[in-house]
């Protein structure tokens, strides 16, 4: 299945193509892949994260589906 993956702030350095940037890349994933599996594959730092699947907050153990958009942010805030 295809899932669009966008990484923000300093996490964008972890995109496999090494190009950085906030634009989403299309990932080819096995059926049943969970958010946590993508996080492990990308070797994201071990810290809290803010995860969205299709613009909704999502738990890291939630399963991804074909055509999903996955967006991951490090712990951030502002105001």
């Amino acid at each position, binding site marked *: 299945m295809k899932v669009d993956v966008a990484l*923000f*702030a300093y996490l964008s350095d972890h995109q496999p193509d090494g190009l950085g940037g906030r634009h989403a890349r299309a990932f080819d994933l096995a059926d049943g892949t969970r958010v946590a599996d993508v996080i492990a594959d990308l070797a994201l730092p071990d810290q809290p994260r*803010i995860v969205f699947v299709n*613009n909704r907050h999502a738990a890291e153990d939630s399963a991804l589906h074909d055509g999903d958009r996955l*967006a991951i942010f490090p712990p*951030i*805030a502002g*105001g």
Partner: protein
Amino acid sequence: MRDILYVDMATLSTERKPLPEKWSRYAGRALTDAIVYDMVPPTCDPLGRGAVLVFAPGLFGGTSAPNGGRLSVGAKSPLTGGIKESNSGGQAAHALAKIGLSAVVVTGKPADPLARFMLSIEADGSVKIERVDGWAGLGNYAVADAIKALRPADDHYATITNGPAGEAGLKAAGIAISDMKGYPNRFAGRGGLGAVMGSKGLKAIVVSDKGLKGVEHADKEAFNAAMKRFAKALTDHPVSGVGLPTYGTNVLMNILNEAGGLPTKNFSSGHFDDVEGVSGEKQREVTLERGGNVKHGCHTGCVIQCSRYWVDKEGAYVTKGPEYESAWSLGTDCCISDMDTVAALDRLCGDYGLDTIEMGATLAVYMDSGKIAFGDGPAAIKALKSIFEGGEPGMVLGHGAEATGLAFGVDHIPVVKHQAMPAYEPRAVQGIGVTYATTPMGADHTAGYTITANILGVGGTVDPLKTAGQAELSKNLQIATAMLDAFGLCIFVAFPVLDIPDAFVAIYDMAAAHTGQAWDTDELMKLGREVLTFERLFNTAAGFTAADDRLPAWMKTVPLPPHNTVFEVTDAELDSVFDFVPETAKEMGLL
């Protein structure tokens, strides 16, 4: 020593008196509120003779409490018609506190409306009011230069200045406070307090703290110990220790966009396709490329350091930030995705002395009238300049989003209590809608920043699209924020405080060690409730009712893409937020 300096602009006289005992636990927002509640008739003309303008450092002003140098500015707001506390960074709060002043209270107005005055408060406590009629119409940056030319080269001072917007009595006028480099770029922006300062003929206040030491503590050792624990929490927490110092406040742009809660095109969508150009990440990259500063504090003692300077292609200073709220209002809400255009608008607002949140929302409302196109940066700059240079649309823009919407027939005006909403969409982030609707300030995100639990996962999680728990979340945050504003703490300390229990304890340990008074959790929360009680009672007496604690009706009927949701928190839930006020008022002896 904590004194109040009274400045009467009718007689041009000043008087310094000790802080009354009844206010000995008040500072910052608590003190501006108490003084406005005490001295200002709630139904008075906010620009009239009876109006009072108060500047008060927080309880930690003049100390080394981390992030403890914020300034509260209070008055009856010409924009909302209610009580206002507008909060700013910059150097003035520390300087006032070191001189021993817990507040400067400006009353009356001069007989000659063309007269301009500068109030100088020197490090030795002496005070002078001088005429500066030649400064009429000068922008904040020119006033800062004019002041610099008058001061000794080795002076150390802060400025509080008013631009032409405040002189003209515009309801979107804010008051500029100088930062550590002396740039007049920190703002008590919201609610038109610049117009109050202008009505008093006050063009500038200079506060010199040259050679002054920090304010003394009742127990220095205990204060230092608590201060270290507090500083550790701020640097340990990933948000205040890494996220904010690296990207600044504008790191929020992408996450609100992802959540579908980023108000776009005059609050008609929660998603901006061209967000990249005004995102915090892009801002950092460009600023670094151009050699700009991407990390400093807005005042001495800030350990989080979320501030940055935007520089032009040649590397010359343009303006601060821009902060998230400004990048959103002048950028996203107007569909402008070019940060140089946003910075040009931000600089104009800063120099004129206009609130960037109000002005971005205003430009978006004006664009919605069809007079200029969404996304047209040059037209937005021309429209903003027309306030002072003439032509269309002219001065009405400076009175804010509601006045502009009414003048140009726009029926989609995002305001509460006549004040423009900031950078979070209530239809996609229900909790912030509760805060916008109910805070005595008019639509204001800082009053109860539910984005913490609604979006950022700080201090728990509350689903932003559901109504459950939003009223309670907003209420608790409004109480806690009122308390932080009284202490002069930057509200960004809330991120670690909500997650690290000892950071909260460290606040009252610092307060107790500093004042010698007893402070604990109950006392902190009581202080927060008292602040809000002053504000609610003032507004009720000024004529506000439950009908004023509502979002615009269209937010309950017009769905917002991409989630296609409306604001659904019930009126009864909104009305429950201030259920503690009658009892607190009784305890305070106000009812």
